[in-house]
């Protein structure tokens, strides 16, 4: 029953506290320093270097992305302005050609009207000339007829 001498044993027992305690404490402190230089420092350096590398890369990628987005927006506005410019030029040209067409049309109309008028005047003058001639001839004939009739008598 010596094994069941849990408490207050001079020799053995579960709660036999002796110099094992401070020596174990010293051993754990020493282990802390050993593990710090063998494990925590080197692994920490590697992991933190990698974390820095990754976060730097992420920041860089984000910057590049924002730059790309800015350029894209820039290009889009440029495209937009070019498009409106083109539209303006096209509509200007359309107006211009419209004006030219109208001008030409008017010019042609005027010319046609003028030549029509000229022709009408000519026709009119020729008609009156012919009529005058006809009248004259009729007068001549009538005079001739009168003369003949008078002379025969």
């Amino acid at each position, binding site marked *: 029953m010596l094994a069941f001498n849990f408490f207050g044993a001079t020799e053995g027992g*579960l*709660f036999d*506290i002796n*110099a094992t305690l401070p020596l*174990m404490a010293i*051993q*754990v*402190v020493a282990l802390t320093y050993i593990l710090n230089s063998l494990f925590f420092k080197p692994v920490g350096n590697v992991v933190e270097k990698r974390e820095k590398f990754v976060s730097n890369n992420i920041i860089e990628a984000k910057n590049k992305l924002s730059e790309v987005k800015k350029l894209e927006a820039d290009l889009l506005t440029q495209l937009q302005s070019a498009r409106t410019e083109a539209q303006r030029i096209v509509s200007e040209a359309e107006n211009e050609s419209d004006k030219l067409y109208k001008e030409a049309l008017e010019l042609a109309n005027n010319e046609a009207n003028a030549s029509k008028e000229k022709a009408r005047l000519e026709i009119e003058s020729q008609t009156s000339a012919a009529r005058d001639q006809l009248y004259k001839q009729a007068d001549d004939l009538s005079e001739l007829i009168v003369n003949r009739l008078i002379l025969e008598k």
Partner: protein
Amino acid sequence: MFFNSLLTNFAALEVGQHLYWQIGNIRLHGQVFLTSWILLGALLVFISLGTKKMENDPKGLQNLLEFLWDYIRDLSRTQIGEKVYRDWMPFIGTLFLFVFVSNWGGALIPWRLIKLPSGELGAPTADINTTIALALLVSLSYFYAGLSNKGWRYFEYYVHPTPIMLPFKILEDFTKPLSLSFRLFGNILADELVVGVLVFLVPLILPIPVMFLGLFTSAIQALIFATLAAYYIGEAVEEHH
């Protein structure tokens, strides 16, 4: 009598027997140091193998060690806080690794095969000296952490919400190491005893689930010990407003 025979069986487990080393006037529990040296040696060999060739793309052991490092960092960072966790991470990590390696080493290695003149090899954490040593180190650490971070203002913590708390906070300084050491000691010793008794009574199959439970308990105890140590340090360095 059944009860009496059970006691005799218990006695066959050699509970509370030690291998005494006598150095001058002081007496040591030799089996505790033997197992701790074997286990810590294995741990150090494992770690030096893993950190021998550190690369940016971790392979093999380095991966495992980095996982472990990250785990310990998360544990100390959540408990101690962003500001001072770096100072205490090695200590918390050492506590975790020491307790974990001791518990699992005690449970996994068939120490019974090695015969000692007195006592038997087992988990170093199943000895009250080891657990009290660890718990006292934790106590010293949180006092040191509090005093070095806040100076004499550390003692504001004792009267923090109201001065009524003073006796309870003083009592806590005693109950903290007591609960830390006895929790670990009791869990690991109980696990060893249960497995020992079961192996003695039914040597086949039946002890296996209990052994698995023991492994689970061992890991949990290591985590609890490290977490509580970190929590106490975090509590000591925390700024009250």
